[in-house]
């Protein structure tokens, strides 16, 4: 039986490198000190980059006392010490769900936007000096990108990762755990439309375990329900799609039935949230508009530049 899916190679991100650079720099300037960023975790240390003034505490190196600042301090009996940055490299792992459900809807496949998101984040992280790895959620295949920010390399890795497989490979969590050290950031790009409830719960368990190692896990939920249901309309339909195994799934689509099914999907996502959340978990929703032929680039721009958590991911400063 024919199953739908878009097997084409994902298109390149419709954003120039300069646009991504400007976005990164603008956030650095505007949101410094106001937004808690996760891109880089900075610690006070012995680097040459000044961080802040603070009151002298017992045990502080007397050489760090800034006498001029202490003279201007409002409390005459209190010394002020100068502290310096101690910069550490952040590990970013981006897991992409490459199953067939992600290759729909045909007008704006979810996998297309996931690849764009991964490409943008990989580039920005690389340009910030972070180490980036791509991970295929289905096969468990991990591709190390390092911290080069080379978009050609990123794109080629994504293309290799998104090649449709005749049969989905079994989940391989071992390679992911090795690529995801404590303190790293894990981005999971998926629609959570797993055929088996156990697979969903398995992913939730992995997310929960990852947070135990001071990892920040962000699940980006690609939700194209509104667009797809708008396209198919109401009435008698023979449904086709990934995960449908009966010869013909014939239904009378109506508003009530669609609401009911949407409720099932939302229930599954709520169960996932409950199973996955352990203090370091966020879920983003990228939603497709209820249009028959939405523009993928517009959806990407709306969510990439408009969502708070995306800005936090890009922010170079602050602590989680």
């Amino acid at each position, binding site marked *: 039986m024919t199953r*739908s899916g878009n097997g084409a190679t994902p298109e390149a991100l419709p954003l120039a490198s300069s646009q991504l650079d400007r976005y990164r720099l603008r956030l650095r300037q505007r949101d410094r000190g106001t937004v808690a960023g996760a891109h880089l975790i900075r610690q006070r240390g012995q680097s040459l980059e000044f961080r802040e003034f603070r009151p002298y505490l017992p045990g502080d190196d007397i050489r760090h006392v800034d006498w001029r600042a202490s003279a201007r301090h409002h409390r005459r009996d209190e010394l002020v010490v100068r502290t310096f940055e101690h910069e550490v490299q952040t590990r970013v792992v981006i897991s992409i769900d490459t199953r067939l*459900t*992600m*290759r*729909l*809807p*045909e007008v704006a496949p*979810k996998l297309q936007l996931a690849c764009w998101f991964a490409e943008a984040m990989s580039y920005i992280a690389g340009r910030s000096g972070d180490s980036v790895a791509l991970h295929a959620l289905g096969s468990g295949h991990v591709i190390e990108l390092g911290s080069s920010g080379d978009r050609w390399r990123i794109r080629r890795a994504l293309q290799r990762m998104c090649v449709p497989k005749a049969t989905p490979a079994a989940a391989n969590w071992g390679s992911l755990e090795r690529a995801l050290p404590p303190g790293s950031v894990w981005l999971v790009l998926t*629609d959570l*439309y797993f*055929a088996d409830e156990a697979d969903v719960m398995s992913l939730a368990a992995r997310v929960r375990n990852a947070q135990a190692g001071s990892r920040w896990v962000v699940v980006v939920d690609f939700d*194209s*329900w509104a667009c*797809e*249901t708008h*396209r*198919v309309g109401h*009435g*008698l*339909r*023979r*449904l*086709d*799609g*990934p*995960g*449908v195994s*009966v*010869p*013909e*799934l*014939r*239904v*009378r*689509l109506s508003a009530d*039935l669609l609401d*009911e*099914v949407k409720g*099932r*999907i939302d229930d599954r996502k709520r169960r996932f949230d409950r199973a996955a959340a352990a203090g370091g978990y966020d879920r983003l929703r990228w939603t497709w508009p209820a249009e028959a032929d939405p523009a993928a680039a517009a959806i990407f721009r709306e969510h990439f530049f408009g969502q708070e958590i995306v800005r936090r991911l890009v922010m170079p400063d602050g602590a989680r």
Partner: protein
Amino acid sequence: MTYVFGAFAAALVVIYMARPNFRRAVLSAALFFRDDPVLGSTNRIAWSTPRPTPLFYMQLSMLLLLLLAVPHWPAAAVMDRSARTGVRVLVDRSASMSTQQNGGKRFDAAVAALRSMVTPQQSSIACFTVSAFDLELTTIADNVASAGELVHLVSRLQPRPLGTELSLVERALAETPAPSRAEGPRAAPGGCAVGATIVVTDMPAPPWMDGPASRGDVWIDVSQPAPNAGIVDLVDTRDRVSGAVQRVRVVVGTFGGMAASNVTLSVSSPDGAVRTQPVDVWDGPTGSVDVTPLRPGRYTFHVNPGGAYRYDDEAAIDVPAAGPVRVDWRVARREWLTRLGWTEDRDNPDLRVLPSIDMLDSRPAIVLGSGYVPRAGSAQPVTTFLETSPLVTGLNFDVAERSGMKGAPALPPGFNAVLSGPENAVWIAERAAPVAAFVPGLPLDGDDNVARLSSTVFLNAARWILERRPRPPLFTLTSADQPEPSGTRIALHPGEGNTGRTPRSAGVFDPRVPRGRQTERRLALWPWLVGAAALVFLAERGLALMRGAS
């Protein structure tokens, strides 16, 4: 056609037996619908009872309505032909159509009325035939394509000084074919199938125009009352034996509000004298003037004022000279020939006096019997007599019973006994054609009753025969062969000068109305069926849209 619609109905049933058409839809979340499949057969055709949806019933009823309309489609074809049927136009061109009214001739009004009637209906008229009538019905054109051509054709006609013979019109309308449904209007020889008739005239519509046979025909009376005075009739009085014109009564009529008191009659005599006198003896709308022609010759009469109609203003007559009675006298006694002043003419007699029945031929004759033998004592009773016969006018039957009349010998066929005696003895007999009379004998000499009776009998027979001889008319009327008045050929056709009639038109012109009730009823059904099918179709589509929207 019935089989075709039956096939459509069967196909409709099969379509509704088929399971609905499920359109393919691809959803990435399709797996979440696995709990909601529609149960049923996966075969394309479900051989079961059709699903009784309102749409199915509406579509089926629409087909049935069209199916019912099918048998009426042949009638529809007839309808199409009769809908654009031909129209026969009968135009009155008699003398009265030359009457002046409202500043123009009635014939002009007829042309205008015809134009206003046919021009708006041009689209529903296939063709025209045009005939004109007065004393005869003449076909002018038998296939005129357009209303404009028709009007042009009619306007070229002119009234003729002839009378109006409405029986021609009645006969023509009666002969208009009542088209059957199968045949449609019958085509005229020229190819125009006539389905309705327009009569344009100045005569009021006769009662038979109101009958059902005239359905769809129309009678247009264009007349309007107009003042007119004119000679209505010329009645001559002649001597019954000699035929001499003793008096001519000129009957004058006034119509349409013409004042009778102003009407005068001028009479011109053969000697050139002209005498004008008022018409002062009136009986209703008609008056009269008696003219005594003193000498033979032409007399002319002129009515003044003449009024709206001109052909009755003048008339001329020729009064013949009264000559002696010409007699073929075959009886020996000739003194009565001299006494009566008759002249003998054996070649061209007005009357023959014969002594024997054997000499009788086809010429007018008096056959004499064996004479009278008066009886002083006993009488022969009259057994039968024909009271209405002029031969016994003034007879004293008591005298007749004593006159000794003898029975006639065997009379040839054609003779009827006027006065008979005992034993079927025919004393007086007459034959109408050829005219002849049998009398007992010549008048007797003397002055007694029998002599007077014999004179009366003989002269009654002579007068009866002589007054029946053809007399030259004082005037003749115009005819179809000689329509123009000339001399004593005048146009005094009855009723033509009556300009005071109340106009009466009749009928509603509808060239689409076929002549015949059966055809009409059959034609009326199928449009309703098709219309109902259309309504059902609209309702079905509307319902389908509403369902689709929900």
